[in-house]
């Protein structure tokens, strides 16, 4: 699939490591300092699942953008990032904002190339629109998570003993 990112694609590829690191850093900054330190330091998938999932998530998103993947390919990676944020201490905008951070990082990292005309503005706009779209999908996932949480709560109340007692004709 044509990514329509032209030259920008080349620069995104070349600077992938730095851009991802900076993106990761910005996301970690949404947590208190001590927490960010832990999320950064421990690389174990099971001891630090939040840090690990964010890393995998942004990597997958980035690769998807480079490869021009279709929307559905992004879901699992966006999910990795937002499912936990949907139950953590964030407002909806704070939970979803981390996707937008990518725009900021790219502008900063590729500032020279952009101002120097090596990357044309149309390419940048295409890229940014893509990020915007991913943020909207992320918002959908966020809402799904919250709805699921509400549903779980309701079921929890209904399910437990009530169902059984009803079955045994103890509650009418």
């Amino acid at each position, binding site marked *: 699939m044509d990514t329509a990112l032209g030259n920008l694609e080349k620069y995104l590829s070349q600077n992938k490591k730095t851009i991802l690191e900076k993106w990761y850093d910005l996301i970690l900054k949404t947590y208190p300092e001590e927490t960010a330190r832990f999320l950064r330091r421990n690389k174990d998938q099971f001891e630090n699942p939040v840090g690990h999932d964010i890393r995998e998530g942004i990597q997958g998103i980035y690769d998807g953008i480079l490869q021009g993947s279709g929307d559905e390919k992004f879901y699992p990676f966006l999910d990795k990032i937002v499912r*936990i944020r949907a*139950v953590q201490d964030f407002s909806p905008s704070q939970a979803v904002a981390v996707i937008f951070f990518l725009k900021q990082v790219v502008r900063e990292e590729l500032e020279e190339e952009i101002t120097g005309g090596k990357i044309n503005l149309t390419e940048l706009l295409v890229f940014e629109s893509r990020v915007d779209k991913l943020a909207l999908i992320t918002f959908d996932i966020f809402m799904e998570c919250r709805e699921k949480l509400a549903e779980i709560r309701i079921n929890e109340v209904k399910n437990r003993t009530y169902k059984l007692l009803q079955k045994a004709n103890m509650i009418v």
Partner: protein
Amino acid sequence: MASTPKPEEILKINYKPPRTRWMDTPVEFKPGTFCYGAKPDNLKGLGLPNPREWSPADEDWKLPENWKEILLEGLRERLDRFRSLRVFMDICVRCGACADKCHFFIGSGDPKNMPVLRAELLRSVYRKEFTTAGKILGKIVGARELTEDVVKEWFYYFFQCTECRRCSVFCPYGIDTAELTIIARELLVLLGCHIDWVVASVNNCNRTGNHVGIQPHAFYDTVDMLCDDIEDITGIRIEPTFNRKGAEILFIAPSGDVFGDPGIYTFMGYLMLFHELGLDYTLSTYASEGGNFGLFTSHDMMKKLNAKMYHEAERLGVKWILGGECGHMWRVINQYMDTMNGPADFLEEPVSPITGTKFENAKSTKMVHITEFTADLIRHNKLKLDKSRNDHLKVTFHDSCNPARAMGLFEEPRYIINNVCNNFYEMPENTIREKTFCCGSGSGLNNDEFMEMRMRGGFPRANAVKHVHEKYGVNVLSCVCALDRAAFPPLMHYWVPGVEVSGVHELVGNALVMKGEKEREEDLRGEPLGGMEDDE
């Protein structure tokens, strides 16, 4: 470019958390992250202080006038009574080894959920009031005044600790933050500041013998209904006895197994096993609860609720007690029961009537864990098992915190599972056995209003389940704890859809070939056997 506003500026996102010191950051009670306060009727029912209508989200907690005096006196008393408390207050070197080991910290990212900081909430007050350095130097040595905000903070964070003891495994000094949480909750209850889910359960148990508040006839009816289900599936009618004097064994299970889905399938497994063995046992409608939410309230409540096990055993004249798959029940039995309500001289050292095995580990408490009992039966080849009846299941095992860390029960459940299932897969090493991750809902936090926090705290566990689900297609999370069986279904629903939750004896019940049974077509849940068609 330089003058272009950054997206974060345009969005005006204030994503930086407050940069105040932890001591100066007051708690905010947001829905989903705290449990409802104890209702006046439930406090009254137990004779606990300060019954009143209140919510933790209220500005005014309606504390008794002399609340500060009560707390400090309570703390002083406990420092004298529990040597461990004084030691834990003094010896922490703040090395940080425990800091990132708590599932609530890992999942919530809230630094005050680091065990060392959680303990510091209490320790800071201890320093101020009970140490000379703290009295003189104050904040410089980490001491602080006891204020109403501190009480609120205690409530928030000590009901955000599941008393799972994972942190203590990593502490070089063996400091057990769970014990500090136990003490802190005990102090809070002196002010009537406890959570309703726990106090209501204790109040129920005190009146009716179980947390759910089910009365004897309903207990009987529910078990009878489970026997109907067993008959449908196996063609065999089981008639368990209740409160029968002179039985050899008294069997006590957590009430969650009798009244809660999916615990009931585990209970069916117990009944089938005992029937097949022809075991001389009885159930009790008085000691109808293995669990003990008293443990999450105060030492006195724990003792009171626990006492009925021995009372009933003595009244019925049984020889020993067999206990079901429960988590914290075993912590109470293993760590407290003997000195608290024992010695149970009127009971005998447990011996399996089937194999003759002496359970020497239970010599003193006279109480045997069902997985020890069943593993011994399998070891002696006393059961006919058809593993293939669990072939539609791919099973992993969660070490429930209390059986794992409070009694070292690691091998027996695994031995049983391996003998009744063909497909068993372990989760990663640093998430099982003594390092097991808590379900995130233990110690009485398994209520629905706390769901958001439960999803945070349960994430490390769910994450490991997700791993084996994706890698091996695991579709059953088995465990030996009734609280787990209640807490895991929602956790799985949120994090790992497609994974069901079961007890170990449910799997035993599926595999157990019973004399005179009809050809089995369904498992205990009524699902078709051997069908891999539908994993969901």
